[in-house]
């Protein structure tokens, strides 16, 4: 006896109601190019956050599985642009894709910065799949203390 359809080797077993809802949604949009979340196109749009602390603007981008040198980060006219390409390992040795939810390919995100920053002091770090770009706020854009003098 032969199975004409491949065995369903993987079944997900959600254990709480929220996960179950997520599972059901994921099943509904089950196709090679869509994943769970808001990405319904073939383009990859990694999540971007923009924070500010006392001295810096901080931009974080969730991009797991990248190589450090694969990022292109540019700052122009107050807009920070980050792009890159994620490639999966070549050594798949004829493995068949069984389920592919992770995006592969180019991504590009830009964010308009709310404050002026010091361009040559910008630094970026990539750790655990998160790219963090720290942009020191330009001195003239920082709030200034005004001291009351004697008259």
């Amino acid at each position, binding site marked *: 006896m032969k199975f004409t359809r491949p065995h369903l080797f993987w079944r997900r077993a959600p254990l709480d109601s*929220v*996960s179950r809802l997520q599972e059901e949604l994921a099943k509904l949009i089950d196709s090679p190019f869509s994943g769970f979340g808001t990405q319904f196109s073939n383009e990859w749009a990694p999540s971007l956050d923009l924070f500010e602390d006392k001295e810096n*603007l901080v931009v*974080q981008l969730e*991009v797991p599985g990248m190589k450090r040198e694969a990022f292109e980060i540019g700052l122009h006219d107050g807009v920070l642009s980050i792009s890159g390409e994620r490639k999966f390992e070549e050594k798949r040795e004829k493995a068949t894709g069984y389920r592919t939810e992770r995006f592969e390919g180019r991504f590009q995100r830009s964010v308009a910065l709310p404050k002026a920053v010091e361009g040559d002091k910008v630094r970026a770090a990539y750790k655990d*799949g998160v790219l963090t770009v720290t942009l020191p706020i330009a001195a003239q854009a920082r709030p200034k203390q005004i001291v009351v003098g004697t008259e």
Partner: protein
Amino acid sequence: MNNTTQCETKNETRGEQVNYLLPSVNIYQTSDGYTLEADMPGVNRDGLEVYLDQNELTLLGRRQPSPSPGTPETTHYRESACGDFRRVFELDPEIDTDKITARVENGVLTLHLARREHMKPRQIAITD
């Protein structure tokens, strides 16, 4: 992570129920079994738990609070979701559960699962 400190208040107010995020996975079938890759940005070796119960495999990735200089005062814009990652799979009984290996690098968890090797045919000695 900056986002973890923002998230903490959310999880507390929910009480018992903790909301997890579903990591995107790729599953490949290889010559000797399967390879699973899961996207878990912000998760490193310390925050990762992979456990097996019977033939149910659970992946749990906890995000680490990063040593960032000073807590963020303002969030201008936020797209990333709060929470830790969790996903559960039911395994093919052909998988040899003793031979599962896990590795995490740059926020990607890679699991290798090998199929059981079937016992080769062998001669059984007849005792007197």
